[in-house]
């Protein structure tokens, strides 16, 4: 059973106006409005991997990321795809028995084995001569960088024909916001509480950069994406599906509940993380970077940290200030390594 959240209403985001998917609103994806009033997301031709009615929190970045990623994969494969899902929020909020939101063959087995289950699925398709049915595996950051890491590396190394998508919200949200190997330094989680000035949230380790680790396997395609740039995510999924073999996409997905941010801040935080340089968007083929998305307007890290209560303590002590400086240094390093401030003619999508 999921642990109830320990936080009180007072901790939560500022009050927001609630909008339901109903007749008369123009909410993205609303198919109840007149045909000529619908936006692109609510087109009836659009593939629909995850249907509405699931139980994700308001502002869930993972629900958004998964929907765009899988809808794209569904479109480019003509529906000939199936997915293995690691235990986690995505699994729980889409399949409360006897209901399911999945409009495609979907399987959940365990927390740490989604890549291996997917490998088995593609082996079965090979044995049956149905290699045109493509396999996707997906999980959160805990299921990917921590408990599922061994199976993921094995799937990469064998170059099994699987696209693995990690939805990274930087902690174990489903169990109540505990630290994962993807939690940034300084962040407050339920297991890295900033108890006093000497303990400003999560420790600064060496980090676990899964996209780079994926690249070290020389797999055909690796990409990072953020839900602030949905067309970029779609393009990357489409490109990933054009390759055979092991592929990896790491999608940055804000979690309002775990981060203590407003549920309407999901997109802005997903943009700020890119514009600070904290999360560089890039693609790599066979172990080499092939494209990066330049920063349009560089912003200091504080601007990204301030809307999130998980970083609030950093602004209250000299030790916290040091942590902010370390985070800024990480951004600076990324900007240098990926040349994110280069002069460019192209206008990013």
């Amino acid at each position, binding site marked *: 059973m999921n642990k109830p959240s320990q936080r009180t209403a007072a901790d939560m985001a500022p009050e927001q106006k609630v909008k339901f998917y109903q007749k008369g609103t123009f909410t993205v994806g609303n198919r109840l409005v007149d045909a000529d009033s619908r936006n692109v997301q609510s087109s009836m031709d659009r593939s629909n991997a995850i249907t509405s009615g699931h139980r994700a929190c308001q502002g869930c970045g993972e629900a958004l990321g998964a929907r765009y990623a899988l809808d794209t994969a569904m479109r480019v494969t003509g529906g000939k795809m199936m997915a293995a899902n690691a235990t986690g929020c995505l699994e729980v909020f889409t399949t*409360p028995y006897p209901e399911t939101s999945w409009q*495609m063959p979907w399987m959940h087995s365990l927390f740490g084995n989604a890549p291996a289950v997917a490998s088995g699925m593609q082996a079965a398709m090979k044995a049956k001569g149905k290699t045109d049915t493509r396999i996707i595996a997906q999980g959160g950051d805990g299921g990917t960088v921590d408990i599922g890491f061994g199976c993921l590396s094995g799937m990469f190394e064998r170059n099994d024909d699987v696209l693995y998508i990690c939805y990274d919200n930087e902690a174990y949200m489903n169990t109540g916001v505990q630290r994962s190997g993807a939690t940034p330094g300084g962040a407050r989680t339920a297991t890295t509480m900033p108890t006093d000035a000497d303990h400003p949230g999560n420790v600064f380790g060496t980090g676990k950069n899964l996209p780079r680790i994926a690249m070290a396997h020389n797999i055909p395609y690796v990409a990072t994406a953020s839900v602030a740039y949905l067309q970029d995510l779609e393009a990357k999924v489409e490109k990933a599906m054009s390759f055979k073999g092991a592929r990896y996409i790491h999608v940055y997905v804000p979690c309002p509940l775990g981060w203590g941010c407003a549920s309407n801040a999901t997109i802005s935080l997903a943009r700020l993380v890119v514009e600070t340089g904290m999360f560089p968007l890039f693609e790599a083929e066979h172990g080499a970077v092939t494209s990066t998305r330049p920063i349009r307007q560089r912003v200091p890290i504080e601007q990204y940290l301030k809307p999130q209560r998980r970083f609030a303590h950093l602004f209250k002590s000299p030790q916290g200030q040091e942590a902010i400086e370390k985070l800024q240094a990480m951004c600076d390093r990324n900007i240098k390594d990926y040349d994110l401030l280069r002069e460019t003619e192209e206008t990013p999508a």
Partner: protein
Amino acid sequence: MLKQLEGSHAVAEAIALCRPEVICVYPISPQTHIVEHCGELVRKGEMGNCEYMNVESEFAALSACIGSSACGARTYTATASQGLLYMAEAVYNASGLGLPIVMTVANRAIGAPINIWNDHTDSMSMRDAGWIQLFAETNQEALDLHIQAFKIAERLSQPVMVCMDGFILTHAYERVDMPTQEQVDQFLPPFQAQQVLDPVNPYSIGAMVGPEAFTEVRYLAHEKQLQALDVIPEIASEFKEIFGRDSGGLIREYETEGADTIIVTLGSVAGTVKDTVDEMRAAGKKIGVVTVGSFRPFPSAQLREAVKNAKQVVVLEKSFALGFGGVVANNIMMSLQGTGIHVHTVVAGLGGRPITMPSLHKLFEKALADELEDMQFLDLQWDIVNAELARQRAQINSGPVAESILKNIQVDTAYGGAASHAAT
């Protein structure tokens, strides 16, 4: 066709005859020869379109099996000991999802202390996981049980573990009667799954089931096990019709007619037990044997019937529950509840210690003389045990037991220990 084969190779050839579509492998002794030979057969093109996957752990091996079986592919893997424990989470998951995977367990002890030799601690640790567990007595039976296992698994939509004694069977060369492909095809129809992952008809498998339905799902899994009590003998008789020999089934009786004392055992040691019983029967002793072929489901009714006229039952088993007693004996005591038949537990053969006929003679004579303790360990070296217990009473400090024994008998296990040991 009669062949002289290593047990592992016999099993691999039987697997090939079953036309598996996916085999997932990770090496662990003593099952390695089985999957090595499977790999060879796949590469030689003798297994059709079978996909042979080398994965990075036992957890991944069974997880990949879960994925492929859910896609409707006939799926096989093999493991033992630590490997079975490492995949434990997936063992429960495979049965919970009702996937008809067949897995060989080449029975081996569990460490620490690390030990590669045979006992039944590994598969017994998974006795409540919802898998059907069949135990082979000989290499012929191991071969036959694998062919039956796919049929049982696919009829019940439940995974089956075929347990065969590590080294004693897996590495022994014996004559086996290898069936023909035509026979196996006649016996085992292609795998038709009721519900598979398929884009044409998309299912969601593995949803989160809450308190409102979980008990029902678990009960139905238990019901599958109960159904297996009918299906296992049915399939054994279908097997006999085509292959002409008795193999499998729930239990096997040997010289139980008029026996006052019945030995209950499982696995390869049954052969030694039967030889001992033969000699004792020749000397006019009223003793018989029942071999448990299916440990899960446990054939309580059949066992009760088989031993109903005996005065006592001696359970000889290669496993035990620390802090309690025999694992198999516990199941038998529950099955014989209210019958008044006395059940003795004998733990033997742990970590590969040989179970010899002289030891069994002594044990069985003691039982016939009504002198057997309720619980005992065959050939336990009491001098070593008592010395270590005395030391523990004298000084309370913790440490690994195996190393403590050496320290107690003054063997220095630190660097240079071997030399000082050699000098004594």
